[in-house]
């Protein structure tokens, strides 16, 4: 005979293990003077082109490396390797996001040289990455002008968990009649006070502002 069912109280976060690993990574980055920046966006928003330009620019000045999450291919890593910065692919297979443990594993004995900046490019997806802390200090959400101004309203959670927004492909803004005011208002609605930057990886417009922002932010964390 079955005993009577009983109700027991349990307090346990489902993603506790991820949160613990992320905290350890954050601590490790801090003590070794590494600024970790993660990038999230939908597929095709221009993360890789933006990162390629960023790596190339920072490579001349100081240590930089990148981890790249992708479902199946290594195309992104191959593209980024052209910057000559150390780049490592994390192939997630069927998984739609990176988790802290994957970052931790990828960092075993890597990068080969000390770096000041570590970029973590998440899988192109505006839903799942919102749930997973990767130990990054700065989470950037990218939004291209070709995607439309209402993306922040459709994916408020990822925008709310991010620290800074980057509007990409601004060289196409006029052609697609991008409504800057609406885009800014929508970002402000889901993440009040969030700084919004803009860039064209193609023309280089906005790169200097972005690099200056990154440097200021890194200094403020020290």
């Amino acid at each position, binding site marked *: 005979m079955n005993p009577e069912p009983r109700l027991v109280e*349990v307090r346990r976060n*489902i993603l506790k293990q991820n949160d613990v690993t992320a905290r350890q990574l954050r601590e490790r980055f801090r003590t070794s003077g590494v600024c970790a920046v993660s990038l999230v966006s939908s597929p095709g928003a221009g993360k890789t082109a933006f990162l390629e330009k960023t790596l190339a620019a920072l490579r001349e000045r100081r240590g930089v490396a990148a981890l790249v999450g992708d479902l199946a291919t290594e195309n992104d890593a191959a593209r980024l390797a052209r910057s000559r910065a150390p780049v490592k692919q994390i192939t997630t297979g069927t998984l739609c996001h990176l988790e802290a443990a994957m970052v931790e594993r990828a960092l075993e004995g890597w990068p080969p040289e000390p770096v000041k900046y570590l970029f973590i490019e998440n899988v192109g997806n505006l839903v799942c990455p919102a*749930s997973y802390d990767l130990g990054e200090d700065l989470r950037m959400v990218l939004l291209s002008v070709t995607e439309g101004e209402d993306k922040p309203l459709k994916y*408020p*959670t990822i925008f709310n*968990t991010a620290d800074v927004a980057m509007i990409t492909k601004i060289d196409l803004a006029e052609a697609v009649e991008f409504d800057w005011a609406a885009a800014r208002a929508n970002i402000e*609605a889901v993440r*009040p006070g969030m700084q919004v930057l803009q860039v064209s990886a193609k023309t280089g417009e906005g790169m200097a502002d972005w690099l200056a922002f990154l440097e200021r932010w890194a200094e403020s964390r020290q």
Partner: protein
Amino acid sequence: MWAQMHELSIALGIVEAAQEEAAKRGASRVTAVHLKLGPLSGVVKDALEFSYGVACADTTLQGSRLVIEETRIMTLCANCGERRPVESLQSFRCAVCETPATEIVEGRELQLVALEIE
């Protein structure tokens, strides 16, 4: 499709956590799992409910109920000086005074709160 894969891995995490907690209490079967779910958890309720049944198959949780308590997004309002709900997921403002909500104090929960075991 993506969302579903994500919720399936979350559902597997719930089953694993519930199994561990049940084993600690000497239970042989879990009949219900009570979960607190925040709008900012990044987890979609419908997709999670669908995935949950799949995740429970052939475990001590097979046939169990998933009871989801949805929380609200709460802010510590800079103007009111108190905990207040925000207007909506598309409008992070204090529902009382409309001040932009910059400090979120509740709404990210993805927490196992209770089990019914036998």
